[in-house]
């Protein structure tokens, strides 16, 4: 290493008078997300689960249609069948949303991030933007992919669904939207908890354990609460002929609005803490 190096470079003259542009902050976040293997693995897992479950469900129902009871046949919802893998997808998309923030804290990268972009609101905005766009694209591609794959593998005499039938397009597109919003809920939880294991526990708890707990409560309590659970909101969205036990559901879009409210709350609290806490 020669010692006569000068450390001066020739950065553009505008340097010290500029500000960190939101676009630049988003670009940095995108580089961070795509430069770790966990992102690719998470997305691969997401694809395998959503598409795989759709395929298996399609094949399985085709084989057993003739032995199904009349009640089963009457309540059969081919759209919901193909979107069944989205529930597993929701767990995986949560992991992605969590890692976007928690990996910063577990590895200490958060300090590099905040030294480069001192406005924490901007950092948070960039993360939400990247997670929203990536989540939306991936979720919709997988939701439609699962639908078409599932329908293609579903053989007559089992009935098929098509996007032109009432409620089907809403179920397929909406299933993707639910997936995206849950990714944002996870990002919010991770920002609050700043810890991968804690955030995953909280996320899985809300998604899967909470419904079980609510179920165990007396129906006078569980009845009015159940429909607000993410699990049920998602189920209402992805079903065309909706039958789920005897608990009333929110209509798909009202449920979706409630879910967006959860994401906004988690991200709001997270951002508020993010701005105030030491890195």
């Amino acid at each position, binding site marked *: 290493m020669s010692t006569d190096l*000068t450390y001066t470079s020739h950065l553009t003259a505008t340097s*010290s008078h500029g500000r960190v542009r939101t676009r630049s902050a988003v670009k940095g976040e995108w580089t961070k997300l795509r430069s770790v293997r966990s992102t690719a693995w998470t997305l691969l897992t997401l694809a395998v689960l959503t598409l795989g479950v759709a395929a298996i469900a399609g094949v399985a129902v085709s084989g057993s249609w003739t032995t199904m009871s009349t009640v089963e046949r009457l309540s059969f919802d081919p759209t919901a069948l193909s979107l069944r893998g989205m529930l597993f997808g929701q767990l995986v998309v949560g992991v992605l949303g969590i890692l976007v923030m928690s*990996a910063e804290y577990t590895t200490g*990268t958060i*300090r590099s991030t905040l030294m*480069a*972009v001192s406005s924490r609101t901007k950092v948070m905005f960039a993360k939400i933007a990247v997670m929203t766009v990536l989540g939306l694209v991936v979720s919709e591609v997988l939701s439609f992919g699962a639908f078409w794959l599932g329908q293609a593998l579903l053989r007559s005499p089992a009935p098929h669904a098509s996007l032109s039938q009432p409620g089907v397009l809403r179920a397929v597109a909406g299933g993707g939207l639910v997936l995206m919003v849950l990714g944002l809920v996870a990002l919010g939880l991770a920002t609050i908890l700043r810890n991968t294991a804690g955030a995953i526990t909280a996320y899985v708890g809300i998604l899967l354990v909470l419904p079980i707990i609510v179920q165990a409560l007396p129906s006078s309590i569980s009845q009015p609460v159940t429909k607000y659970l993410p699990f049920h909101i998602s189920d209402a969205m992805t079903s065309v002929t909706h039958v789920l036990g005897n608990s009333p559901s929110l209509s798909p879009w009202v449920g979706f609005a409630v879910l967006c409210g959860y994401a906004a709350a988690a991200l709001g609290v997270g951002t508020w803490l993010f701005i105030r806490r030491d890195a």
Partner: protein
Amino acid sequence: MIVTTRVDQTFIHHRRRVTLAAGHEGDRMIEVRGITKRYKDTTAVSDLSFDVHEGVVTGFLGPNGSGKSTTMRMIMGLDAPDEGTATIDGVAYHGLGLPLREVGALLEARAIHPGRSAFQHLWFMAQTNDIPRSRVSEVLEMVGLREVAQRRVGKFSLGMGQRLGIAAALLGDPPTLLFDEPINGLDPEGILWVRNLLKGLALEGRTVFVSSHLMSEMALTADQLVVIGRGRLISAGSVSDFIAESSGQFVRVRSPQGDGLAALLVQRGAHVVRESDGSFSVSGLDAPAIGTIAGEAGLHLHELSPQMASLEEAFMELTRDSVEYRGHDVAGASGVDARTTPLTETRK
């Protein structure tokens, strides 16, 4: 305790005025004013004030756990002080437009995602501050990591991680640089490289602030020193001032009537410490004065020699009270701690 010099605020402010008067207009500097940081039951940094000027290497010296890293994090806007302000060229970190082009810092070398390549780590930082891709390759070349740029950071040695952290600090070509313990984990060649780098950056007119718990390292690299202990300022000034003002200048005295002489010297305002070898260390009176006192009392002197503590000793003396955790002295062991059996405390 030979010297209990506590540099008070008036001294610091006096120094600052002098330096400002001597410095030219627009001196870029880090100004820390009365910052205090409390955690649940401890105060990490307490009412700390100092300046770091451009064109010189300023060493930030203190024992482990004395609040150096916390102070640096507050300067870099990562931790918020409970009281006080830290500014860079008059602006708090949050007010900097493109921060990486104003200040670069190596805080914790290993605070990098192990799954990301060195190049991608620097590239994401560069993108946020509109720094061209070519600059990323440039700093990787500078720190000698060009060949491993695409390798994942998790596979890096401690020294390579340290070099990557230095590359990140240099990325925006900033006029102000902070380095927290930059030589940790480096081999001798790496240590030499860092020393030359720090000096080179200062020669280019940059403001360079570097922390270390090793006095010897600071003696080799720094021009100015800020010394803290337990989160409080102990001393600030040039390295030579530091030795002159705060190192234990004392006189070693041997006498067959040692106890009698010691009592006399204490009466005259000296601070006397009996050493394990039977001699006395006297401070507060110079050698001629001690000789005169002994002569007037008719006491024999076998040794009367002015002593100058090394920089390392001076540092240990200064921070003795402020070391958070310290091994217990082994009975009879020689060394700074075993030496002191104060007869009296005459100075506070």
